[in-house]
């Protein structure tokens, strides 16, 4: 059995007579009971804890963003932040270097992009810049590389011009495969490119190259090549002399013609056209005064004979 120990009883309000003892009902009120049951309902809990805050946040956002000035303010903030990052010194591109391009091409690229620098790397549209450079006819492809120190280096693989082509529109530089690279104003700007002319000339540049190589002995007199009727070549020399070549074996015929002409000193004579279209039967056309002289000489000779 439990031993007896004295345990004093705690009397309500024993500390003082005047102290009011508030005995509250331990039972929950109907309202608090119902509220608590409501709070323990899973759907209601989810509604209050998730749906309502989400709705409130969405509502506040919508109210804030529905005003134009607020949207502008936010946009301004974003732009400002962008600007701060973009204008960092590490992101600045100071200089533009171009490698692998001719002087003319360099100048052209510099004229387009040189004014932009210094520029932030974020603002520069590398893709369109590369596109613009690659759209230049003489550029095969271009690579843009940024490196430390604000350097933008453009590495270009350029197509080399081989010929100068004259047509009704003017003078053009042409690559070895017939691509038009550039329009030039004066022949004297690029005197070292052989001149070609005539419709369809650019389609047979390998033949033209062969002819030019073959014509090396008379290269100082060679002015250019003319494609005649889109089928054969004429060699034009200084003083308006022309060597007409056949369609086939043009280089071979030319070599033969040169040998013959040099041997017979044809180029020194007053001849307008040396016609090798039929290599077996070369024909010469004299200049008009030479022809007149020849006629005069012939008539003198015949009158002499008649006398």
């Amino acid at each position, binding site marked *: 059995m439990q031993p*007896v120990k*004295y345990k004093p*009883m705690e*009397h309500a309000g024993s500390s003082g007579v005047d102290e009011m003892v508030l005995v509250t009902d331990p039972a929950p009120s109907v309202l608090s*009971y119902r509220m608590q049951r409501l709070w*323990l309902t899973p759907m209601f809990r989810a509604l209050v804890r998730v749906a309502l805050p989400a709705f409130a946040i969405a509502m506040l956002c919508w109210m804030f963003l529905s005003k134009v000035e607020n949207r502008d303010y936010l946009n301004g903030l974003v732009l400002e932040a962008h600007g701060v990052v973009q204008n960092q010194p590490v992101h600045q591109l100071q200089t533009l270097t171009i490698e692998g391009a001719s002087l003319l091409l360099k100048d052209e690229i510099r004229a387009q992009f040189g004014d932009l620098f210094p520029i932030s790397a974020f603002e520069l549209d590398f893709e369109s810049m590369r596109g613009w450079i690659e759209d230049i006819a003489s550029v095969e492809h271009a690579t843009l590389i940024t490196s430390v120190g604000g350097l933008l280096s453009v590495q270009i693989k350029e197509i080399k011009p081989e010929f100068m082509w004259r047509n009704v529109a003017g003078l053009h530089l042409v690559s070895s495969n017939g691509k038009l690279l550039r329009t030039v104003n004066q022949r004297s700007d690029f005197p070292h490119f052989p001149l070609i002319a005539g419709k369809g000339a650019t389609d047979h540049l390998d033949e033209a190259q062969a002819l030019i190589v073959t014509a090396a002995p008379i290269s100082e007199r060679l002015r250019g090549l003319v494609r005649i009727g889109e089928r054969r070549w004429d060699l034009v020399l200084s003083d308006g002399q022309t060597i007409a070549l056949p369609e086939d074996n043009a280089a071979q015929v030319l070599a033969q013609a040169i040998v013959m002409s040099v041997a017979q000193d044809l180029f020194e004579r007053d001849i307008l056209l040396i016609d090798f279209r039929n290599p077996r039967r070369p024909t010469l056309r004299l200049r008009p005064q030479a022809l007149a002289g020849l006629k005069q000489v012939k008539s003198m000779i015949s009158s002499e004979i008649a006398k």
Partner: protein
Amino acid sequence: MNDLYQTQRAMRAMRKAAIQRGVIAVIDVGSSKVACLILRFDGPSNVSSGEVIGSMAGQSSFRVIGASTTKSRGIRFGEIESMAETERAIRTALQAAQKMALVRVDHVIACFSGGAPRSYGVFGEITTENAVVASHDIGRVLVACDLPDFGENRAVLHAHPINFTLDDRSWMSDPRGHIGQKLSVDLHIMTVKERTILNLNHCMRRCDFELAGVASSAYVSAHSALVEDEQELGAACIDMGGGSTGISVFFKKHLIFADSVRLGGDHVTSDISMGLQIPTAAAERIKTLYGGTMATGMDDREIIETDGSSGDWEHDRRQVSRSELIGIIRPRMEEILEDVRDRLDVAGFDNLPGKQIVLTGGASQIPGIDGLAARILGQHVRLGRPVRVQGLPQAATSPAFSGVVGLALNAANPQDEWWDFEVPQSQLIGRPVRRAVRWFRDNW
């Protein structure tokens, strides 16, 4: 009877639905305390994980997730006396339990001890339609029981079929499929005053709860306090509550008798209060701390200070010896136990093979009660505590909680009752119609 059948079936359906949903509350509305447990049913898969056989042999299909107890108010002799006060007490218990469980519960099973329970053994007999007993024959034989007059405004609280007899074979638990002609049933019916159930139902409704079942606390506390052998061999469970003492006799695992004595621990307290002229609260405290039933020489020398706040210093500073206290308690306990003895004698408890008496309930915690009970009730007396169920707080394992724990067990594994069987509707509804048709035929 039809009305009752329908309401009880509705409550069964509600209980089934609540268990399916997973949570149900059980509440013991007692005279001295209101105890509430909230049970969560996880289904059988969760329980037996990792174990060959689940703990408590499958009885632990539920888990207690909320428990609360509060001093009851407005209840005397296990019956609701003041509606508003009782509602507050129930609300306190339910709210605290829900708060602990963190879940909202909508269904409650309640048990109470009052309502002057009476038990009847009734007998019904039919001849089976075919040679084989079919399941509707069970319903027919249950309807065929001739019911005694229960009295005015009394309702059936429990109706357990305890024994089926087919021809000459008795003690069949399930006669379906057996071949036989004459099927008879012994039905145990327990009735209480109808208004106690109605009041309880009304109270629960006012607390926003649906009553999913009612039970007698004498019946359910036996479920948690008696072990299986005792239920099988015959035992009486004495649930000694605050306002009344419930008696239930079990045999072959069925309730065969139930009664209650309208005396309990509160009467002991009021005796002490009157005898020592101290307030009820002080008397309750002295009873709990120093109470006993067997006085020894030592107790003469043990002095108890009677506190009081009457303002009279001399009156508040009196001292009593423990022997005096025991001298007040013991006659009242003897009276209670003798009343119990009388009820058990009426029920013929002595004829049972096992004469085990199990004392449980809050008043059974008084020291020496087992010795006292052994003198009055017979030699086989023991003190019963509720079985352990999963999640039950330590504070709710005392004998005072055997009612609510037993109710939880009963909610998880209910015994078959009369309304669990399909009764042919023609038997219930068709009778007046048939009588009307017969009257019509006779007269025209």
